[in-house]
């Protein structure tokens, strides 16, 4: 049996994806958004097909027409939310509540649709978590976390990952999440502590600076008086966003690595394991420089940015025990529908994969 780790490869290129991106973007606009599902499928397909493991590529085989219905429903819902939110945030509250209650269902649907439309070696993946488990993981435990004022939110986070990652299958092989809640408590508590210390430092500096300004010269020119508060507001905003970016980035990288490294497929003598070796510094550098370059190029860098980040994520991952995959056999199952996937796309869910 083969034990050596096999890395994932990515064979796409930013320049090549640029053409796909810009043509599909234009089609989305001239069709007033009707083309979005086709563009979405084509993009996913490009990334899947260029992801290669052991000489075989992945694929995405979703039918855009099925996605379209989901997009229309979710899009209408989203527009109602945005408009009512702009008019009066109170109006948006019942919509947020409905959305919140529907969220576990959407995530469940999304996971099923995404899995069954993703293929490797022409075999579909499957997601076989139940709806009841989805509500426990995505509504029950988050509620418990809220009731305990966030103290149990690491446990809710653990439960979410356990539900999502523990229910994939490829042929007759099932995935198991072997992570432990202890890790989530340790890391999330440390990050929260770091966040609180960071806020205290920023507020401390801000108060000191503000105090020194207000005791300063009494006669400001009309223009200058306006400049002082807006400059300090900008610095404060930057500090808060910078801190949030750092903490979120840390969590993203640490949790991605941890989750991949505690994912086992087909547990037993011929099990398949993963090794993710994302580096926090490099990951944050890619994300940050992507944002800066995308803004500077008025969005034109976006396709290069997407390829760059995806490539780093994929090539940081390797697999051991992949030889067992040859024994996988297709399992016949009914195809789930697409509404959840459209929702996850619009609202940009993070599943940690």
């Amino acid at each position, binding site marked *: 049996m083969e034990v050596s780790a096999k890395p994932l490869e990515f064979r796409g290129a930013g320049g090549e994806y640029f053409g*796909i991106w810009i043509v599909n973007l234009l089609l989305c606009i001239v069709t007033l958004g009707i083309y979005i599902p086709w563009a979405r499928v084509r993009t996913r397909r490009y990334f899947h097909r260029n992801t290669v493991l052991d000489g075989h590529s992945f694929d995405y085989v979703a039918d855009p027409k099925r996605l379209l219905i989901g997009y229309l429903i979710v899009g209408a819902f989203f527009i109602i939310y945005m408009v009512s939110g702009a008019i009066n945030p109170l109006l948006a509250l019942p919509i947020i509540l409905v959305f919140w209650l529907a969220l576990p269902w959407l995530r469940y649907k999304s996971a099923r649709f995404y899995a069954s439309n993703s293929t490797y070696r022409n075999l579909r993946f499957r997601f076989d978590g139940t709806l009841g488990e989805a509500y426990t993981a995505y509504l029950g435990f988050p509620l418990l976390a809220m009731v305990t004022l966030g103290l149990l939110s690491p446990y809710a986070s653990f439960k979410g990952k356990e539900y999502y990652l523990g229910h994939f299958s490829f042929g007759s092989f099932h995935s198991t999440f072997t992570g432990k809640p202890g890790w989530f408590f340790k890391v999330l508590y440390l990050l929260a502590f770091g966040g609180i210390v960071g806020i205290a430092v920023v507020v401390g500096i801000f108060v000191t600076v503000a105090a020194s300004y207000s005791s300063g010269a009494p006669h400001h020119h009309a223009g200058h008086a306006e400049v002082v508060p807006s400059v300090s507001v900008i610095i404060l905003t930057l500090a808060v966003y910078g801190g949030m970016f750092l903490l979120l980035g840390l969590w993203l990288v640490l949790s991605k690595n941890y989750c991949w490294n505690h994912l086992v497929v087909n547990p037993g003598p011929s099990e398949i394991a993963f090794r993710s070796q994302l580096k926090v510094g490099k990951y944050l550098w890619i994300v940050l420089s992507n944002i800066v370059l995308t803004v500077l190029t008025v969005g034109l860098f976006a396709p290069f940015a997407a390829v760059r980040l995806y490539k780093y994520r994929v090539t940081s991952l390797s697999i051991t025990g992949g030889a067992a995959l040859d024994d996988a056999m297709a399992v016949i199952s009914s195809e789930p529908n697409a509404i959840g996937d459209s929702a996850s796309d619009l609202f940009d869910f993070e599943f940690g994969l």
Partner: protein
Amino acid sequence: MSTFRARFYDGVRAIARDASVTFDLEARRAEIWVDGESPRRVAFADLRIEPPLGRTARRVWIDAIAHAEIEDSAAFREVEKIVSPQGWMRLVSAAEAHKGAIAGSFVLLILVAVFMLRVGLPAMARSVAFKLPQSTLDSVGDQTLKSLDRLVLKPSELPLSRQEELRKKFDALAGRVPGLPKYRIEFRSHFGSPNAFALPSGTIILTDEIVKFAKSDNEIFAVLGHELGHVQNRHGMRLILQQTGVLLAVSFFLGDISGSLSSFGALPIALVESGYSRAFEQEADDFAVIFCLRSGIGTRSLTSLFARLLKTHPDELPAWFSSHPNLSARIERIEKVRRESGAGTN
């Protein structure tokens, strides 16, 4: 007759088997030879070749579940033209790799974006703003005032008696002009800048600085007339809607809609900070001229105030650079509107 090396995936087992695919262009059918098995023969009509995608291997589906993967090549593309020539997705696929089509898409995208920003979005914002009920405008205005009070405005230091006097006098003037929108006058202090702004609800904020800057009450009323023009034309609501549209579009293309939700709170601030477009200011000026003439205070109050603002607060940027029309241009325009409206000297 052309033959290609292929990898055959049967869709049942997770293995690839070496194969060859022969396209018989005369019999219009393909023969798929998987090693060790008797050949599968499929008519071109039952074959599905997916359009190219980047440089990825081409997928030839021989039925609903099994496909062969063939490396993309010029020879394969020749055969493909004969086997499955139609389909709009093939056009999309060709455009994605065609330099001219990519450049064309780029130019078209910029044109569409400029058109949407300059024409489409303002027109949509206008039609939506005029369809919204007064109660909506009220709640948006109240919230805007609350955030302004929290962030940029300070309480007025004018004596309450003076505030009441100005309100009463203006109400009397407004009574002479039919068809005015609902309004309410508020006094605030704003970092020493003589300013006035209208909220979507019809609340007009006068800063202490503009009240002190005015040489006569009529100058203040002329400014209020201008702000009533903003209220009448729902400029505040239109600006908020336009900015929401831009924000939505930007976040959609950058793929982060969740981020835009959190920046909603900042919108009312942008209303005051970024100011109105040239067209909005001109519309409000036109309204102010009519207000001044009908109420009998005359347009000179308006132009004299602008003329003095021009002296003490010269426009820092020329009009072509800033979105705000400069004051001297506005004074000239006001004179013109007054003459055209057939009024005598005032």
